[in-house]
C-alpha cells in the first residue's frame, strides 16, 4: 500500500473501536471501498478517538486521546472512519479541545480539515457515483444522528446503494430520528434507550425490508439487538459491507 502518487491520495483509516472489537468486516469493507476510490490505505497504530470521554465531560482525557490520534494520522492526505460519530468527533470537536494552546489548536484544525466519514468521502471527495456490488432484496437505511446532523451524511449512502444490483431501498418513517443508542447514554439510561429503540424497531419492521443498514456500528448493534430480542427476522449490516459486496458472512449479532 505504499504506491502513493499525486493522483493516489494516502488515506489513514481510523477503524473505530467498535469495528475493531465487534465487526472487523466493516474495516475490510472500508479498505476495499477506499482503494476502489483511487486511494491507498494505511491503518496506523491507533486508539479510541475520545468521543466517550468527551461526551461524559472528561475534556482532559479526550484531549490526550485527540493528541495521540492527530499525531498518528498527520502524515496522511485524508483521515477516514466508517462511522459518522467518530468522524464528527474528530472533525467538529477536536479543535475546541485546544483553545488554550495555539500550537495544538493549529494542528487540530489542519487535522480536522482532512477528516471524513467513509461514504461521504467516497461520494463527495472522490466523486464515486456507483459501486460494483449486488444484494438481493429490500433494505431500509437509518440515518445515524452524528453523521446526519454534524457531517451532512444523507444522500451519499442512498446514492451508492441505488447502484447496487438487485437492491431496493425502502425508506422507513422517521429515518432521521435517533435509535436511542447515544453511546454512554444506553448504559446510563437503559430503560429509556430501550423504549426509543423499540419505536425504531417498529418503524424498521413496518417497511417490510429484510435488512436495515446504517453507517455507525453503535446504532447498528443497538437496533440489531432490539430486533433480535423482538424475534424479528430483519438483519442489520453496516452500509459499507453492502457497498463492498461483503455480505456473505453473518449479519450483525448473527451466529456463524
Amino acid at each position, binding site marked *: 500500500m505504499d504506491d502513493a502518487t499525486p493522483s493516489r491520495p494516502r488515506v489513514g483509516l481510523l477503524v473505530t473501536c467498535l469495528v475493531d472489537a465487534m465487526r472487523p468486516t466493516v474495516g475490510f469493507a472500508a479498505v476495499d471501498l477506499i482503494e476502489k476510490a483511487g486511494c491507498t490505505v494505511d491503518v496506523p497504530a491507533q486508539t479510541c478517538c475520545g468521543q466517550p470521554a468527551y*461526551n461524559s465531560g472528561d475534556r482532559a482525557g479526550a484531549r490526550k486521546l485527540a493528541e495521540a490520534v492527530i499525531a498518528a494520522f498527520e502524515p496522511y492526505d485524508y483521515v477516514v472512519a466508517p462511522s459518522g460519530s467518530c468522524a464528527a468527533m474528530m472533525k467538529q470537536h477536536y479543535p475546541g479541545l485546544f483553545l488554550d494552546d495555539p500550537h495544538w489548536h493549529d494542528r487540530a484544525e489542519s487535522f480536522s480539515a482532512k477528516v471524513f466519514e467513509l461514504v461521504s468521502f467516497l461520494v463527495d471527495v472522490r466523486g464515486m457515483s456507483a459501486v460494483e456490488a449486488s444484494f438481493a432484496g429490500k433494505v431500509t437505511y437509518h440515518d445515524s*444522528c*452524528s453523521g*446526519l*446532523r*454534524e457531517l*451532512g451524511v444523507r444522500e451519499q449512502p442512498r446514492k451508492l446503494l441505488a447502484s447496487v444490483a438487485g437492491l431496493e431501498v425502502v425508506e422507513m418513517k422517521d429515518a*432521521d*430520528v*435517533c435509535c*436511542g*443508542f*447515544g*453511546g454512554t*447514554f444506553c448504559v*446510563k*439510561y437503559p*430503560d*429509556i*434507550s430501550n*423504549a*426509543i429503540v423499540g*419505536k425504531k424497531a417498529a418503524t424498521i419492521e413496518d417497511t417490510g425490508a429484510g435488512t436495515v443498514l446504517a453507517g455507525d456500528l453503535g446504532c447498528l448493534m443497538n437496533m440489531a439487538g432490539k430486533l433480535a430480542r423482538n424475534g424479528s427476522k430483519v438483519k442489520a449490516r453496516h452500509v459499507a459491507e453492502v457497498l463492498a459486496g461483503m455480505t456473505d458472512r453473518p449479519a450483525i449479532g448473527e451466529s456463524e
Partner: protein
Amino acid sequence: MDITSPSFRENATRAIADKSLQKALGNVERGFIYKRSKAVAAMPEFEDLRDAARDIKNHTLANLDLYLETYADKVEASGGHVHFAETAADARQIVLDICRSVEARTVTKGKSMITEEIALNDHLEKNGITTVETDLGEYIIQLRGEHPSHIIAPAVHLNKDQIEADFRRVHKDLPPERNLEEPVSLLAEARAVLRERFLAADVGITGANILIAETGTSIIVTNEGNGDLTQILPRIHIVVASIEKVVPTLEDASAVLRVLARSATGQDMSVYTTLSTGPKRSGDPDGPDEYHVVLLDNGRSAMLGTPFGDMLRCIRCGACMNHCPVYQVVGGHAYGWVYPGPMGSVLTPTLIGVDKAGHLPNASTFCGPLREASARCAFRCRR
C-alpha cells in the same frame, strides 16, 4: 413543587410503563412536529428569520441592563409599576403584597411558567387567596393537583377520557347525564365554569412572552383568549416575567413572534397576540386600574457571560422537547421540576443545582436536532 429530578431514572422507568401516558405522548408528534415542519416548509426565509431573531436576543442580552432600565422607565411613564425580584421568594412576596393591598380573595391566572418556577400558586393559596388557572390545559392540571408536563402544552400527558373524568368529579353541580364525548363539549364546559371565575377575580396574573423596552409593553400569545379576560377584567393586572424576556423595539418583538408561533405550534401567528401598556387610561373602555410588572432574576443575571448564557435566548417555544426522543418516551414530569426536555436540561441545573438535576443533561442521546443545520431550536440556544 417538590423536586424529583434526583430520581429521574426511576421516574422515567415508571413513565415508560404507563400506558395511558404513552398513548398521550403520541399526540406530541401529531400535534407539534408535523405542524412545525409544514409551517417552516411554507416559509423559505425561516432560517434567516431565526438568525435575525437570535441576533436580536444576543444584542439585548449583551446590553440587558440598558434595556431593562429603559423598559422599566417606560412602564412607569405609562402609569404602571415595576418591581425587581432577585429571588423566587422575593417575587412571591411582591405578588402577595399587591394582592393584599386590595384584599384580594380570588386571582385568575393566564399561563405562566415563571409563576411555576416561583411556585406562586402554593404561596397565594397558603395565604388564603384562591388561584384559578384559566388556560384550558392549566385548568385541567390544576383540578388534578398536577404541574405542567410541557412548557406550552401543560396537559399533553393526559387523554380525553381522563379529562372527562376530572370534569365529572369536580363540576358536581352540572347534570351527571351530560354528554362529554367530544373534546369541544369539554371545552364548552370549562369555558362556562371559567366565565364566572373571570368576573369574580380581584387580580389577574399573566406571564409575558416578550417585554418591549421602547414602549414599556408586555406581550402574551395565547390561543384561547383566556389571557385577555385574565388581564382586562380584574382591578389589578400583574405581569410576572423573567428579565431575559425584554427586546429593544416593537419591530424586534415582531421578529420574535414570527419565529415563536411557527416553532411552537406551526401557526403563522397565535390566535391572540395581546399587547399591554400600563393601566386603563381615561377614555379606555376597559382595562385594570393598576398595572404591575414583577421582573424575576432568580439566577439569570449570573448566567450572563458564562457558557450557559446562550440559554437566555430561549423563547420557550417547546420545539426542543417535541423533537427530543427522550422526552417523547418519558414525558415532562419525569424530569422532576418545572422545565422538562432539552431546554430544561440546561436551565434546571442552573436554577436548582447540578446536585439535584445532574441527570437531566446526561439524559441526552447526543442526537443533536437542536444543535446543527437542521436544528429545531428557535434560537439555536446551544450555539
